[in-house]
């Protein structure tokens, strides 16, 4: 008995000593350099180096955004240039990816990656924090020969100094037409009939924005209160069990498995949903539209190959293969004509080549006012 008590006493002393040491160390650190983070490498923007395209190239992208097969776009690039491409599909949400990489980017490293693909607002945020390199237009002749004129000067990067569009798309509703053919509006997703059979995206700029649109509120003009109202409505639906789950790309699995009848989702995901009844629909009150961009992070190990890749995917004959596989909106001119020449049905698709009329009610990806408060409320919903 005595030995046990002695042991317990000794471990208590040891724990106390450890905490004392910790407290002491904390006290010492208070005297030292006391700020971490905060866009430390902001002042020295580097320009990505061009040059001969060779070596190894690591690209981070979203799932289902390219044909990874042995006759796909990556294989073609490797064959032509001799570059060995390490293509990783590790982006599931803009915020999640940023959160994962931020500590490395802050140190001027990109974890070996030379290209990321992120949404406009995320590219802007990364650039503002000094995490991206600029790209000399002289190095991107094919890109600027082929890019759609409407994409040459976006508000977030008017001179396209640090971003090159990859693919664009729309966020709307995926419907399993065999189970819920009548769903047409985001409001229908709140119908108790579909309780537990609906998923929504985790992205702040998508789900609450679509709910606002459905209620007749323009997300581009909405106040913080209106964002919070939409978030409250979603929270109530989540609490009641109406919404099954908040997802990134995983909603495609739930649609494939037949777990859900409808989801808020991305227009081009037909290539990764194995359910022939699944159909992307433009919500009656409009969609959100977005463009995702290739960017070169600080610490990119092979910028010449990254630039080579950008030029490569802007060749119309390469871009048409990408479109054919991913079914998103291409930023490259002439894709539609090439598809028509091939006799592909995609040339007629409003999802791949949306007309202005088709997207007349759509909005961009808007950042809410009072972002921190709105985002906190949104994260509270996600971690119900």
């Amino acid at each position, binding site marked *: 008995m005595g030995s046990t008590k002695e042991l317990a006493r000794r471990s208590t002393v040891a724990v106390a000593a450890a905490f004392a040491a910790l407290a002491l160390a*904390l006290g010492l650190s*208070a005297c030292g350099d006391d700020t971490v*983070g905060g866009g430390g490498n902001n002042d020295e923007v580097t320009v990505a180096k061009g040059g001969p395209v060779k070596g190894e190239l690591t690209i981070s992208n979203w799932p289902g955004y390219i044909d990874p097969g042995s006759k796909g776009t990556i294989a073609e690039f490797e064959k032509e240039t001799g570059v060995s491409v390490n293509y990783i599909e590790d982006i599931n949400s803009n915020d999640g990816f940023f959160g994962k990489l931020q500590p490395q980017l802050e140190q001027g490293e990109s974890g070996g990656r030379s290209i990321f693909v992120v949404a406009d607002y995320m590219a802007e945020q990364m650039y503002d924090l000094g995490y991206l390199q600029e790209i000399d237009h002289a190095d991107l002749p094919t890109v600027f020969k082929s890019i759609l004129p409407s994409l040459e000067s976006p508000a977030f990067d008017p001179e396209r100094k640090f971003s090159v569009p990859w693919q664009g798309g729309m966020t709307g509703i995926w419907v399993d037409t065999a189970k819920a053919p009548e769903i047409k509006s985001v409001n229908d997703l709140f119908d108790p009939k579909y309780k537990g059979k609906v998923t929504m995206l985790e992205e702040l700029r998508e789900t609450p924005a679509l709910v606002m649109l459905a209620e007749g509120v323009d997300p581009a003009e909405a106040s913080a209160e209106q964002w919070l109202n939409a978030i409250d409505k979603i929270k109530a639906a989540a609490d009641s069990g109406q919404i099954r789950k908040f997802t990134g790309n995983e909603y495609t699995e739930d649609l494939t498995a037949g777990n859900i009848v409808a989801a808020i989702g991305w227009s081009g995901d037909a290539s990764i949903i194995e359910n022939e009844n699944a159909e992307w629909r433009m919500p009656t009150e409009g969609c959100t539209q977005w463009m995702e961009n290739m960017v070169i992070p600080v610490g990119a190990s092979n910028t010449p190959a990254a630039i080579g890749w950008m030029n490569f995917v802007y060749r119309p004959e390469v871009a048409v293969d990408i479109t054919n596989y991913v079914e998103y909106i291409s930023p490259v001119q002439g894709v539609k004509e090439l598809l028509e020449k091939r006799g592909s049905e995609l040339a007629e698709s409003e999802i791949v080549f949306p007309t202005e009329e088709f997207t007349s009610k759509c909005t961009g990806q808007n950042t809410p006012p009072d972002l921190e408060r709105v985002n906190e409320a949104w994260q509270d919903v996600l*971690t119900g």
Partner: protein
Amino acid sequence: MSWKQRLVPYWLLGPGLLWLILFFVVPMYFMGELALRTGTLTTGFTFNWEWANFPDSLSGNTEQIGRSFVYAGTATLLALLIAYPLAYAIAFRAGRFKLLLLFAVIAPFFTTYLIRTIAWKTILSDSSPVVSVLQTLALVPPDGRVLATSGAVIAGLTYNFLPFMILPLYANLERLDLRLVEAAKDLYSSSRQAFLKVTLPLTMPGIVAGVLLTFIPAFGDYINAQILGGTQQAMVGNVIQSLYLTQRDYPEAAALSFLMMALILAVVTVYIRFAGTGAFMGDEEERA
């Protein structure tokens, strides 16, 4: 004894101590320091003894903390109920299949944790045979589901941490001196009495170790809730993940992690006191 000889135990402690300092004390220090900073990602985080981070990190998250206790506790209990008979059977009844069965317990580790959990997502999907069997048995309502419910998360936790319960129990049962059980029976105890008065107390160290090894990781787990849960199953691990990776509120995330560690430490201390330090330390003389 020369001073050199006296130093030997410390040299022997060296590698372990170095390991602890490098992988426990140093990270703890950085986390503790981070927990006392304020700021945002864009302005940077400044160290200024911000103790308010601790109460702040709890506000609005008590539900998830409670849920973590319930889920981890239930999973631990279920794991114990499954593991004890299994470990007992392997130790005493398996005969020449002993090694094979032990291998079967460890075999799932050859696949990564993540893949195994995702596999459960397929197994439990709404139209899967498993779910229709459960529906036929009326364990799940006809239009009900398993995936994206608390049940799925608890099942996932139980499954994933079960080997951590089985192995210490097995190690303990294997060493059990069966002559003591025989002696109890010779003294006219029933099988039940012999189990309750002899086997169970003697295997307490295994139970305590198994419970700790299961409960602690299950409490902090977020993968099961994320993959198998729905909108109402988030555990405290999911909150910490969201604070770190999505909201980038590093100080609050660090503060919450610290508090959870303290909480677990307190619970474990109480538990060990209750179960007896001797049982934890494997101090069998105390009981014998």
